[in-house]
């Protein structure tokens, strides 16, 4: 059995258990967050979470730990940050086309 970590197999989807592991929380806690709608599984796949969701939840947990916001607030912050990033990208694109 090889322990060589390279090349890395990239994860695209995670199970609830993997998601919990990826975010350093218990599976029970992760399941609770799903029930509360703070973490969303893939459409039509209740035990399937995207890597983007793992990144999102890790951000939420950091925001809670570092700034003391609760997870509902952190979810809103992450939503707004994603929107801001989309708008930034759009602005950069429009600038490239000479719109501003």
């Amino acid at each position, binding site marked *: 059995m090889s322990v060589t970590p*390279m*090349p*890395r*197999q*990239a*994860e*695209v989807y*995670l199970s609830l258990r993997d998601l919990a592991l*990826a975010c*350093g929380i218990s599976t029970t806690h992760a399941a609770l967050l799903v029930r509360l709608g703070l973490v969303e599984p893939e459409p039509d796949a209740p035990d399937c979470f*995207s*890597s*983007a969701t*793992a*990144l999102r939840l*890790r*951000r939420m947990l*950091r*925001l809670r730990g*570092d*700034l003391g916001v609760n997870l509902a607030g952190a979810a809103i*912050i*992450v939503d707004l*940050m994603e929107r*801001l*990033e989309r708008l*930034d990208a759009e602005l950069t694109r429009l600038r490239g086309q000479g719109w501003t």
Partner: protein
Amino acid sequence: MAVKFRDYYEVLGVPRTASADEIKRAYRQLARKHHPDLQPASERARAAERFKEINEANEVLSDPDKRAKYDALGADWKGGMDFTPPPGAPRGPTVTTGDWEDIGDFSDFFASIFGRPTGGTRRGGVRVPVPGNDIEGELPLTLDDVLHGGQRRITLDGRSLDVTIPRGIRDGATLRLAGQGSRGVNGGPPGDVYLHVRLAPHPRYRVVGDDLETDLPLWPWQAVLGADVRVDTPDGPVTLTVPPGTQSGARLRLRGRGLPRGDARGDLYAVVRVVVPTRPSAAEREAYETLRRVASAPADRPATP
């Protein structure tokens, strides 16, 4: 080992006389302003550095013992000055190389006054395991990568990473490389790497969900009479039967020539566009004039197919 003096009061923007409440308030405001997760992706690395400084300053100034020890150095020091620890200060008990990475979140200056962490013991130095930062990047892929998957070496934050690209990955998907981000501190876990897939536009194929679309220009007679035409697909050329009476805009399906999805594949659609010869030969021109004469539709009305 000379280190650079850090002015923790300056970092938090408070006077040396600041009360515990003032320090707490300044820290909260700065943490909110510079938290890496609250910055656009391009600013995140810089914010992470600033956030570290702010945390270090807070670690010292919010702890009465540490603050007293720091204040005892005197008020003459300015940030950035070469600093030699006073005699009796706890030199790093285990680490002597001055390797900044080994204490991660806190500076050598911090370590020169408060000591470095030693495995397991909690004496004065850094106490809390801090997870490493996540690193995000873009992974530009071609349609070929999506169709076949494969290996890719990428450089991210100056590090080289080998990534296995899963076959059938989609534009906008995120790949997670567990534990490949920044190193953790004090036994904290390393961060992850997250790669956002950006599919470069292909000159010939457009991606529509699991399917691909390609333009199929046809001459009028091919569209009217039908034809067997050779079209390119990602798997090589195939012969496509165009049925008689094919209109512009018709979508002719080549089953299973689209993007991989699980064990199956989407379809490739050839979207018909009827084009007219701009410089017909004399014989072609004659044929079209004959066609106009014999056509049942009037020549002075738009077509009504």
